[in-house]
């Protein structure tokens, strides 16, 4: 009886048909679990970036009025957006690690506080939180300062940038806590047992064994949060921060050209997120190791 003939790719996955020879992998062959080395993804990214950069460049060169003017006008806002995102994100990561550890803590008080924080913050819209920090928090601080007779607090003058950072960090820190909690819990229990059995303390085991592994696991969702943060910083335009969105609105009200202004602002956000997406993909690849 002739041996049943399998499609060619069965040889690759299950070993050769004769049980010995495995055909060399050829391009276009299928894999059971594709990694992130798919060439088409990268191509799409390069095409998109190329197209967006080209579009912005062409608009600025061939129609400097208004496009070049818009870019010049909003460039300080663009800078504020980047600064706000990066500074906030550093603190968000710190809050996320502390919050994540708090959510898995055995100490009931710490666990309780971390859970209250996460649940409260997740249930309130970011815009409302930002407005609260900008308009309500300074008044609250001043009243409290007067009540306890503490001059530096009673005479507190609000700083829009600091309050915007605080608002973003408090909100995103809650989401980040959940991501880190999931990441830590995804690491096999044997890892912490191996570390503790060698006499490491809980914090040492976390720092040297669990977190380095968890960070690799959480990199994709953390990157996602970063991209969302870039876009959500546009909400601070509602609380007197001269970011990209607010500068765009100012230009539009002065020159009455909404189509040109908002198209350009949208393109600038897009190029920003595309750039950071690539940075994140690079990070993911460079932090990988064989399981």
């Amino acid at each position: 009886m002739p041996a049943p003939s399998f499609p060619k790719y069965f040889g690759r996955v299950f070993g050769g048909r004769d049980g010995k020879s495995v055909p060399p992998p050829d391009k276009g062959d299928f894999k059971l679990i594709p990694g992130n080395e798919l060439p088409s993804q990268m191509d799409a990214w390069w095409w998109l970036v190329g197209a967006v950069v080209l579009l912005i460049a062409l608009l600025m060169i061939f129609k400097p009025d208004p496009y070049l003017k818009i870019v010049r006008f909003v460039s300080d806002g663009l800078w504020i957006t980047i600064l706000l995102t990066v500074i906030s994100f550093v603190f968000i990561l710190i809050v996320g690690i502390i919050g994540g550890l708090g959510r898995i803590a055995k100490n009931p008080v710490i666990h309780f506080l971390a859970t209250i924080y996460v649940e409260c913050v997740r249930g309130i819209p970011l815009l409302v939180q930002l407005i609260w920090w900008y308009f309500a928090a300074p008044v609250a601080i001043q009243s409290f300062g007067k009540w306890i007779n503490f001059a530096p607090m009673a005479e507190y003058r609000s700083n829009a940038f600091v309050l915007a950072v605080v608002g973003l960090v408090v909100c995103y820190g809650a989401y980040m806590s959940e991501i880190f909690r999931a990441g830590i819990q995804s690491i096999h229990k044997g890892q912490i047992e191996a570390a503790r059995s060698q006499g490491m303390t809980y914090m040492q085991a976390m720092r040297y064994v669990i977190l380095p592994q968890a960070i690799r696991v959480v990199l994709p969702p953390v990157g996602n949060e970063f991209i969302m943060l870039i876009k959500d910083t546009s909400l601070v335009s509602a609380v007197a921060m001269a970011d990209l969105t607010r500068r765009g609105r100012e230009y539009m009200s002065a020159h009455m050209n909404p189509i040109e202004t908002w198209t350009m602002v949208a393109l600038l956000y897009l190029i920003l997120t595309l750039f950071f997406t690539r940075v994140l993909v690079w990070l993911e690849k460079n932090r990988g190791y064989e399981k």
Partner: protein
Amino acid sequence: MTEAPIIQIQDVHKYFGRVHALRGITLNINAGEVVVILGPSGSGKSTLLRCINHLEVYNTGKIIVDNILLKSAQNINTVRREVGMVFQQFNLFPHLTVLDNVTLAQKIVRKRDPAEAKKIALDLLKKVGIEHKFDCYPGQLSGGQQQRVAIARALAMNPKIMLFDEPTSALDPEMIKEVLDVMLALAKEGMTMVVVSHEMGFARAAASRAIFMDEGQIIEQGPPEQLFSAPTQERTKLFLSKVLQI
């Protein structure tokens, strides 16, 4: 004058919820002894082993390791330094190279300087026959190689006692020997070892005592030859007949 046993277990009980996992274990192990614990799955052998370095917290009774009563967190870390443990699933740190796996705890727990830790690590890797792989990640090694690295990692802390929790159960048959050879050499050097394993060959060659456990109790113990060939208890006979058939 005889020294006090290095491990003293006195009437230890352990519950997992409503499951009574250890039902009054009393056991003394002297320095230099090699003890093999066997028994059916769920008999509490691994739990007992994990109670010795406090990975499991026992409910009542007393465990004294190296004259230290396991109670406070301070004591536990002191004891764990002196007790090496090898796991069924190896539990190497996958994000670190073989060398870093062996030096990590030396540096942060024993506070050795990196050069010294590296020297000790390379010596130990040589001893377990895997020094040429020091730069690899655990994922690039075979199971047997990983387990030998895990033994080297535990030895790097200069433990007085080594605990082995089914060290060969997750290995392919051809790799079991390379791990057992390392354990055999260790036993010959006079290391105190407590081994949960069904490797009769190893027990015959190296063990000074074999212990049979079932349902959270020690049923029978004695020199391995005697326990295997002339068990006195019915349950031991039944278990051995099943294991030896294979």
